[in-house]
């Protein structure tokens, strides 16, 4: 049975992971059974996510329930309570106000009178915002399919690459990792462990190398080896640092020059624990590179990641995946409806 909220497992001993063939088969076997379960477990995950929410928020939600049930009409106190729920989920002042104004107006127009329907209405609005029109994530539509993973420091880029590579492998495609973070201490080694763990090739140079050069060589290697998907890790960087953003643009240009259609996906990783600053991150990374989608990590904690609502609203970016743990199978496709229900 899959453990959705897995405990940290000790890093597997490296001798074990290097016995490629046996290991690879084992992974394959495991993935077959997990693929069957994905469908059923999908709903289970959010149910469980809700279960694991901090007690205070449970209380908050109950409060809303109580207020809603006890009321005949939608009034200011009720809207205040909802404000608290939305703000504490990191939706931000402005979005919260827009959402609540919207329902208040519907109440005025008498479209919405039953307090019990209020929560449903809000969920629908959130779901609508998050259901951004975008082409599906489809790594089989080009070969090699080049994915660039970007974001600020420590959000989970490298880990997400490991998980994504595992997912892609399970779907039958062959991924290759590129150690484009040559700056942070042991970043290359970290990605290497992931490559070992899931049994996929990695292209790396020594720490301190020019990331553009690493990527350039990696694309050659990808073509020569005929891999299906290239996953490029990049160093975490503050979106406000002009020189580091320029470095990232250069990597992007190198990819484009090599393959005019690439990168096929530029995915911005956001940490669900982050508050309103994620907005600024999304704006500036979007401005610098053009993002094709978002990945929201660390949703297995108590943070709701509500800031993606204003981000999706403003930038019209699809959320591709969510991260729900540190294990290799802790990556899930995003579901707007489930997300809305986890918020309120």
């Amino acid at each position, binding site marked *: 049975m899959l453990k959705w909220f897995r405990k*940290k*497992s000790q*890093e597997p001993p490296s001798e074990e992971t290097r016995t490629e063939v046996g290991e690879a088969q084992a992974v394959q076997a495991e993935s077959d059974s997990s693929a069957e379960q994905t469908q059923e477990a999908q709903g289970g995950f959010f149910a469980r996510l809700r279960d694991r929410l901090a007690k205070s928020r449970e209380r908050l939600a109950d409060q809303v329930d109580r207020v809603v049930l006890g009321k005949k009409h939608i009034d200011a106190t009720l809207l205040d309570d909802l404000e608290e729920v939305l703000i504490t989920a990191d939706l931000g002042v402005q979005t919260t106000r827009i959402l609540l104004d919207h329902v208040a107006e519907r109440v005025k127009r008498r479209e919405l009178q039953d307090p019990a329907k209020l929560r449903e209405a809000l969920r629908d609005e959130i779901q609508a915002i998050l259901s951004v029109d975008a082409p599906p994530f489809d790594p089989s539509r080009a070969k090699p399919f080049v994915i660039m993973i970007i974001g*600020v420091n*420590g959000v989970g880029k490298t880990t997400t690459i490991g998980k994504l590579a595992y997912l892609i492998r399970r779907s039958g495609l062959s991924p290759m990792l590129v150690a484009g973070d040559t700056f942070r*201490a*042991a970043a290359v080694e*970290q990605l290497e*462990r992931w490559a070992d763990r899931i049994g996929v090739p990695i292209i790396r140079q020594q720490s301190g190398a020019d990331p553009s050069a690493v990527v350039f060589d990696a694309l050659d290697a990808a073509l020569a080896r005929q891999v299906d998907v290239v996953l490029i890790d990049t160093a975490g960087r503050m979106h406000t640092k002009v020189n580091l953003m320029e470095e990232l643009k250069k990597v992007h240009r190198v990819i484009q020059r090599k393959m005019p259609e690439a990168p096929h996906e530029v995915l911005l990783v956001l940490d669900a624990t982050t508050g309103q600053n994620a907005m*600024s991150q999304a704006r500036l990374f979007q401005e610098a590179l053009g993002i094709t989608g978002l990945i929201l990590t660390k949703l297995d904690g108590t943070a709701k990641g509500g800031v993606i609502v204003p981000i999706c609203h403003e930038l019209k970016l699809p959320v591709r995946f969510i991260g729900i743990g540190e294990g290799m199978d802790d990556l899930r496709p995003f579901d707007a409806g489930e997300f809305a229900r986890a918020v309120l």
Partner: protein
Amino acid sequence: MFDSLSSKLQKVFRHLKGYGKLTEQNIQDALREVRLALLEADVHYKVAKDFVKTVAERAVGQEVMRSLTPGQQVIKIVNESLTELMGGTAASLDLSGKPPQVLLLVGLQGSGKTTTAGKLAHHLGKNGRKPCLIPADVYRPAAIDQLITLGSQIHVPVYPASSQDKPEDIAAAAVPFARENQCDVILVDTAGRLHIDTELMDELKRLKGILLPKEILLVADAMTGQDAVQVAGAFHEALQLTGVILTKLDGDARGGAALSIKAVTGCPIKFVGVGEKLDALEVFHPDRMSSRILGMGDVLTIIEKAQEVFEEEEALDLARKFREDAFTLEDFRRQLRQMKKLGSLESILKMLPGMGMLKELKKMQIDEKALVRTEAIINSMTKEERRDASIINASRKRRIAMGSGTSVQEVNQLLRSYQDARRMMRQMMGGGAKPGKKAKKKKVKAFFPF
């Protein structure tokens, strides 16, 4: 975004005639804006609510100081309360007692523990201590390698743990390792973990029991949102934290989490991380954090930087003028003259948060030749014109151009860059009105928002 609070307060107090007492009524609206500003800065919902209540109690009945507008007065009270709440003055590490002392770093995944361990080791080493590093994270891939790499960069011994070891065994080996290497401070890096992961929180309790740390420091990301309250609360409850280190303040996060964390733990914030490099660690200044959360810019840092060149009085005067928007063409000229010594205006303004402004800054760069012509233009103005640029009409412009041997276009250009500078100062300092509207007004100070 950054000027919104002050400009909103300006609106709130628009109808208040003259100066007088702050009443419950006129404060209500102002504090609503303060609350929203705090929420925008990621201060927790409940913390913001409580805080505003406290400020209201403190503010009602207060006499508005002669030199301040009601908006300024409210900001002053808010700023003071916020600073007080965050600790008043800077707090330092407690390393008293018999060495070796143990510092334990804990926190969520990716908050910056390992990097901060390296930074602290570097900091302590510079201050005459002999630190060593203990990697007790056996879970994250290459976490031990990471700490070993950092240690070698700063020549600090790192205990050679293996990811097969148990964290408890690594902890037990810490003190003997320190003794062996003649170290007097032990910095223990732990794995990132969720505050709701009871198994791993229990592991931390066990590590605490083994290490008996002098300080248990929560390493928290300055970008954290509303969740900061839950995280800090849970870590504090499990471990009785002694302090907090706030990382990644080099970005543009307003950092309201600082207030939330302080409010739930009561622990002082001891350091802030301002970059990825090992020297990017600074002592926490509650007053600066306060103005950052309120979005008022780091006025203090500007003053500090300016002091390196200006006489202190002159620097204070300039900062005051920026703040009060009493920045005249005379000051502008004085500033141009200082420019070479001071580094560019840009470098001063870069110290302010909200660097979305950077594009604007580019427009303002001034070259040497232009400097000479600019000075000539200002020299050709009358005193009155220098003090109040709004009186410079078309015929005055012609006279000034003739007098300085330049053209009316150049005079216009100068006036524009002066207005730009003023507008930017105002925005940086938290003002808000559009420049167009401003130029019409006679008394500069009267329309400055706070």
